[in-house]
């Protein structure tokens, strides 16, 4: 039964990305929430515009033009609450990924314990860790002071000491943090988030409060075995908001126009939250994975039965951070994903030009290929750095992605790819999934705003998730195995269509097979992995799965894990072209 929504509030979501700003209008039609219209404009928070409102107003104007609904007053302020069905909106959700990463210094006692937790906490928002301090770092107090000052941090996260545990080490660190803050002019002092030994919280507050803003949170590591990030994450969000609003004061004006009817989150947080909500809805042993590949950052969100988090890589994106991609990978690792020979010099030129013009669009085939190769490599780097955060999977070999269902993909390079096979190829190569999974595209990039909206309008979030069908890119079955030889049968499948028609297929190692199944069509697959390959039921064990079709069909990726690429460049390019052709054959 539909929930009564007679007094339902309309909601405007503004998502300010580093390249584009989007406005999404949601309202109730025939008793349920729908996406009414969306507008997109270039983001104007940076040079030469330096006023985020221009892009926001342009995106809202597009929504006005599409719907005829007046959302902006003559002075360009947002009309909140609505005055009638045709004028104004009731609620505002603001998600922001634009703006530089929050410069952070992480401080812990033990490198592998509290410092690691501080680092993990920092990675839940758009932050860049500029320096790390711990008791074994061999720095003197003056060395620590100089390190902090030279990092020019916006934020220092202090962790360390089990509750009622070590205090001297924490006090040593506190001395350095306090002196560093004291030495900076007041307008350049950083915020401090203390989430260490709770017995010292009062001392930390007393020491720092007269010098610099200090925020206290529960200990990240109350015991050696326990890590609790959530309470500190809430505090970190508050700090993020205050820093971002200082950097983009115009956002304050927009939020104040919807005072009491608005929420403001980092986009990554909204995305992480929706992944957690979906994992609760789907339940089951498999987790839900979300990847958002943006211009300024890449977010990997993961959750099992409602529990999980997001990891933000502020140094990995398809815009400004590209020139720094070198520090994370080699040019050969980008080149290996190209189906065509493109000289390394041109790839490097591409990286730097994209850094200079992050909002620009690749037009030539070569540029699209380079951009997709970059996307694959960024996903590879990001996902490998997330493995340590996943729960241990007993049957899975080290260095492999656990099975997820589904995998949600967001970000222009994926959702606006020239063709669905190109988007899927980028995801398959970049993430290298295992077992049976479904790739879902966040075409309108709704997920992060919906996650943030759950705070003020949970009915909207729940209804949109149940009624708005995110397009399925493809169901992918991966017989997981480290390949030694190519061309050996790796999976046999019997496909039984809803009509009762049956057919058999066999997929060989080193290839991609596609079962032609249209969107809306359903089938039952009896799968038998060969030579000890694992499709999620255990090595060599078969099983039956029900699948739905998509534009691409059902994909069997038998290229091995990790994907086995030819060492000969010419043969490798041929291989990549063939794989893309296999995916495109049926699309």
């Amino acid at each position, binding site marked *: 039964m539909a929930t009564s929504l007679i007094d339902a509030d309309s909601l405007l979501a503004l998502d300010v990305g580093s390249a584009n700003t989007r406005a999404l209008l949601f309202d109730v039609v025939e008793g349920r929430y729908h996406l009414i219209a969306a507008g997109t404009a270039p983001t*104007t928070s940076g040079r030469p515009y330096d006023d985020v409102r221009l892009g926001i107003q342009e995106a809202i104007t597009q929504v006005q033009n599409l719907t005829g609904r007046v959302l902006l007053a003559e002075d360009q302020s947002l009309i909140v609450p609505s005055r009638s069905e045709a004028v104004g909106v009731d609620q505002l959700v603001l998600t922001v990924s634009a703006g530089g990463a929050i410069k952070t210094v992480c401080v812990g006692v033990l490198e592998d314990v509290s410092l690691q937790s501080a680092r993990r906490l920092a990675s839940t928002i758009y932050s860049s860790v500029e320096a790390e301090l711990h008791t074994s770092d061999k720095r003197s107090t003056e060395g620590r002071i100089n390190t902090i000052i030279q990092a020019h941090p916006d934020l220092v996260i202090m962790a360390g000491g089990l509750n009622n545990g070590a205090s001297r080490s924490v006090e040593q660190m506190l001395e350095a943090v306090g002196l560093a803050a004291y030495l900076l002019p007041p307008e350049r002092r950083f915020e401090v988030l203390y989430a260490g030994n709770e017995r010292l919280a009062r001392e930390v507050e007393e020491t720092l409060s007269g010098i610099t803003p200090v925020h206290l949170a529960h200990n990240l590591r109350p015991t050696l075995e326990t890590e609790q990030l959530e309470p500190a994450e809430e505090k970190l969000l508050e700090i993020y908001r205050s820093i971002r609003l200082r950097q983009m004061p115009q956002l304050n004006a927009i939020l104040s126009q919807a005072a009491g009817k608005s929420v403001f989150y980092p986009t990554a947080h909204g995305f992480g939250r929706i992944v957690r909500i979906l994992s609760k809805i789907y339940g089951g042993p498999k987790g839900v994975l979300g990847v958002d590949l943006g211009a300024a950052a890449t977010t990997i969100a993961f959750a099992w039965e409602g529990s999980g988090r997001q990891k933000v890589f502020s140094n990995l994106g398809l815009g400004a951070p590209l020139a720094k991609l070198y520090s994370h990978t080699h040019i050969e690792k980008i080149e290996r994903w190209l189906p065509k020979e493109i000289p*390394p*010099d041109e790839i490097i030129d591409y990286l730097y030009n994209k850094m200079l*013009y992050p909002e620009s*669009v690749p037009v030539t085939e070569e540029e699209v290929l380079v951009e997709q190769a970059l996307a694959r490599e960024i996903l590879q780097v990001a996902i490998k750095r997330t493995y340590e955060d996943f729960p241990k999977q007993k049957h899975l070999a080290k260095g492999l992605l656990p099975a997820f269902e589904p995998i949600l993909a967001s970000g222009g390079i994926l959702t606006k790819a020239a063709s669905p096979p190109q988007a899927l190829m980028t995801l398959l190569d970049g993430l290298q999934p295992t077992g049976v999974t479904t790739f879902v595209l966040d075409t309108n990039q709704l997920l992060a705003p919906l996650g943030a909206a759950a705070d003020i309008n949970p009915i909207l979030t729940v209804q949109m998730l149940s009624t708005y069908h995110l397009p399925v890119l493809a169901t992918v079955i991966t017989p997981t195995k480290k390949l030694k030889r190519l061309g050996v049968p790796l999976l046999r499948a019997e496909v039984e269509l809803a009509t009762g028609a049956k057919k058999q297929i066999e997929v060989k190692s080193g290839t991609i097979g596609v079962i032609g199944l249209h969107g809306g069509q359903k089938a039952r697959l009896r799968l038998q992995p060969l030579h000890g390959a694992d499709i999620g039921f255990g090595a060599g064990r078969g099983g039956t799965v029900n699948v739905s079709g998509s534009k691409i069909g059902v994909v069997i990726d038998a290229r091995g894990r990790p994907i086995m690429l030819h060492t000969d460049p010419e043969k490798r390019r041929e291989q990549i072209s063939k794989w893309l052709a296999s995916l495109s054959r049926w699309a």
Partner: protein
Amino acid sequence: MVFRPVVRTMPIAEVREKRLLPVPGKVLVSVGQTVKASDVIAEASADPRYRLVDVARALGVPRSKANEFILCQPGDLLRAGDTLARKQGFLSRIVRSPVDGKVILVEEGQILIEEYREPYMLRAVIPAKVSAVIPDLGAELATTGMVVDGIWGNGRYNYGMLGAATQERDAEITTKDLSVEKRGLILIASRLTEAKVLEIADSLPLRGLIVGYMRAKLVPEALKVSFPIVVINGFGNRPMDSHSFKLLTTSVGQRVAMIARKPHRGRPVIVAPLPSAEHHEPPPDFDEVTVGTKVRITRAPYAGAIGQVTAIQPGMSQFPSGVKAPAAKIRLENGELALVPLANLEILVQS
């Protein structure tokens, strides 16, 4: 309404350039003051270093008693070797300052010293009048003259005479173009692809280098050289756009200021101050793209090409690669009609 950034390639314009310190410091000029290129307009302690001297430990006394032996106080200026603390006795002990600096704190038997370091000095670079002071950060300088905006700089600046490395817009600068008579010049070159050129240019030395395109693999070397480098159009192996090349090469012999800002600090700029009796309104930083707007294209296959908008396409346009984006039709200088994503355009202002 579509806004795009404005780039200036103007023979004469009113130029207002903000010269800012990297961190807050002291501004040394006032509004209305005329400054020369070499004048220091602001200074700051950009990279302070601190020393913490543990007197208690050095004298072997309890922390609570160490202050009795300390002879300096906050604010004192020190020379390396100055006495900080002394304990008299049969074996007298002395603690000396390890560096030149200033005492910041004396507490619990410890002395915190800020090391003396040469302050960062911000020079005017452009001979101009101070039109505004930005408290603690710097000043806005105003002049009239030729102005060309770039897109990438190596973070250096200089003022000097403009010379041409090559006469042909298609030509690439090579080591042969760097004869000894080019020493001390700010050289214009259409494109740069060889690292050796930078090495020789640095040994001459040049006073600056302006290129249309540069191979991105040269960025590490470009960041190391002692002279400023401004890239006008982008990275790659292409010729400089025709308007910038023409304007710069016709200005050979003039003195120009090069402010080669790194991308995160704004656009780099080249200014040749010229007297003008007329008032020239500075162009906006960004503007609306409409039919008739003169534009420069930033990305392949027309990167660096200049043209005029003949139509803004409704909705999304599809490109040969399959990518869809809002686009405009551009009449290029060679008469060709090109479909270009709006996001790949800059508005070109010439007068």
